[in-house]
């Protein structure tokens, strides 16, 4: 085990995979000479050279599509899209091509592609640079979407994504880059498609992913201390495929659930989780599934408004307390 930041875990894992497999190469804007807008690729140009660390022109559709084409011929490109907001420019190549090529051509060409991209607000970047739109991709069969919330998962899921033969959208988060945690020294990939119970608990299930899964863990530990509430935290880790069984198993134990999500509530992931719980654990449920999600506005710039729009630890605590109060009223 080594203590390191989420950023360091990404950097070290990328570099290790580049050393392990010469078919792995990086392509993206400002990843070489500039060493990445968020410095994930620091030092990589010097170590691996221009051929494997390709500074692309500002042409997300062009270079993402080129990575898909290179993957069709057997290379294993890792694309960096500076933020997930810019991935919209490459939407046709990702949705209509990367996600379709294996199936549409009857399994003749694999697309072993990783698209690394951070989402998330809280940096006062305004409406176009603060979105959480990973569900656009999680909606699409053929895509795999993973979202690590800790440095350890950043490593394990990135190993899995690079070694996978399908297109994987690898969601990072601006607010997580500097967070620290223990990272195992061995190189065991995570299993894409499996959620993790990151804290066992008996009273209530909290389902989340990415930044909010880290918030959920903090909140759970604080509530155990302050309120004596025993929260079970399910970190989805994989948005597609979605591990419904782990969610249902947890709710059958706790009988109630709160979803913490950084995306907008309407049509958001909480809706999918609540419907899943309704389908799989209706008879076990003692209170409505509560959702804590982003306010339904384009993200404002002003700090006071941005803070108000984003889900917080305090919001999560209140939702958990209110859900348990609803359970108590029924008993």
């Amino acid at each position, binding site marked *: 085990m080594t203590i390191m930041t989420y950023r360091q875990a990404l950097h070290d894992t990328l570099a290790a995979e580049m050393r392990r497999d010469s078919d792995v*190469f990086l392509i993206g804007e400002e990843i070489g000479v500039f060493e990445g807008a968020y410095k994930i690729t620091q030092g990589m140009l010097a170590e691996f*050279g221009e*051929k*494997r660390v390709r500074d*692309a*022109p500002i*042409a997300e*559709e*062009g*270079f*993402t*599509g*080129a*990575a*898909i*084409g*290179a*993957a*069709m*011929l*057997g*290379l294993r490109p890792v694309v960096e899209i500076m933020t997930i907001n810019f991935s919209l420019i490459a939407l*046709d*190549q990702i949705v*209509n*091509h990367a996600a379709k090529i*294996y*199936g*549409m*051509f*009857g*399994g*003749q*060409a*694999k*697309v072993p592609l990783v698209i690394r991209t951070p989402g998330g607000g809280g940096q006062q970047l305004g409406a176009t640079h603060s979105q959480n739109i990973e569900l656009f991709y999680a909606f699409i*069969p*053929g895509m*795999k979407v993973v979202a690590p919330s800790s440095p350890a998962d950043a490593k394990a899921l990135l190993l899995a994504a690079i070694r*996978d*033969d*399908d297109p994987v959208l690898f969601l990072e988060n601006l607010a997580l880059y500097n967070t620290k945690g223990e990272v195992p020294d061995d190189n065991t990939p995570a299993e*894409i*498609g*499996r959620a993790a119970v990151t804290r066992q608990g008996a009273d209530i299930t909290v389902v989340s992913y990415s930044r909010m899964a880290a918030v959920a863990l903090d909140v759970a530990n604080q509530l155990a201390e302050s309120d004596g509430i025993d929260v079970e935290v399910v970190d989805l880790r*994989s948005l597609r*495929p979605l*591990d*419904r*069984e782990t969610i*249902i198993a947890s709710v059958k134990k706790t*009988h109630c659930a709160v979803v913490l999500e950084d995306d907008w509530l309407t049509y958001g992931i909480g809706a999918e989780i609540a419907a*899943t719980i309704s*389908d*799989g654990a209706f*008879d*076990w449920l*003692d209170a409505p599934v509560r959702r804590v999600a982003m306010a339904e506005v384009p993200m404002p710039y002003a700090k006071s408004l941005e803070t108000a729009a984003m889900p917080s630890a305090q919001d999560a605590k209140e939702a958990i307390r209110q859900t348990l109060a609803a359970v108590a009223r*029924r*008993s």
Partner: protein
Amino acid sequence: MSSPRVKNRPRTAKSPPAQTDSLEPERLLHFYRQMVEIRRFEERAARAYTQAEIGGYCHLNLGEEATVVGLMSALESSDYLFTNYREHGYALGRGIAPGRIMAELYGRSDGVSKGWGGSMHLFDMGARLLGGYGIVGGQIPLATGAALAIDYVSGPEAVMCIMGEGTTNIGAFHESLNIAALWGLPIVYVVINNGLGMGTTVEKSSAEPDIYKRAASYRMASARVDGNDPLAVRDAAQSALASARSGKPFLLEATSKRLRGHSVVDPAKYRTPAEAAALKDADPVAGFAARLGAAGLLGEDDIARIDVQALLMVQEAVDFAEASPHPTVDTLFDYTYASPVPNDSRRLPGDPLFEPSAYPQTGHQA
């Protein structure tokens, strides 16, 4: 990365002179035979479409036969081809069995894409036909990436990426040409300019309607060739491919007429009677037959014999397609993912997410 290669200067080339005389007669007759095969295949596809044997959209290469044959004869078998949804002829030109192509149009399990693609999405890794793409311009970044992969391993192959003239207005075209020129990738972009999108003319859609000139923005070499002359197309494509292999990507424009509507169901009413009548003179199959006839290489008997053989080939393709089984429903989930993954849904539309389970009698007591 491969060291930055010598940047190209824009140039325009006139169509090379057609060298009918320098080719052995058998080669010329082979070109003609292939053009007739495409013609008859497409006519049969149109019939099958109107008989509802073929579904979806169905776009034909009628009028494009000379271009198809010229381009395909210039490719090495190890080269890669990316094209759009008007691609039946190109699949034939890559040597794919006509029955497997027709079976794909019929949505059968012996189709080149196992019935998953249809008319617009023909794919055969063995023949290095890497699609068949239904989204206008979608193939251009992919083809550019294939050229990047070849460059990455310093391979000898080249990529040919075919599109219509309307496609040159989409962003992916410009992004891709820029990338290919910056990195010196081994790729030839071929624009089939038939003057029409669906019904919108090239003049109404392109501020620079001389499409080959667009390469100048990327200091990429380019040329325009008469797409009704298979020999000129072949020569131009060979030069373009040689340029690409030396690290200088190329834009080749081939002009021809679309003899029918945009797709089988389009009656092309936007054409004036004069325009429609002029199409007869633009028929590349009749034109090449006349040229070979004038050179003493093709007589009426030959024309009839080649036609009968082509019709027979097409009938055999239809027979193969009709005999091929429909894909069975148990294969529905076979191609979602290449790497097996837990929790991949295999639910049919009416299935519940979870099997009903009873709440345990001795379970939770609130």
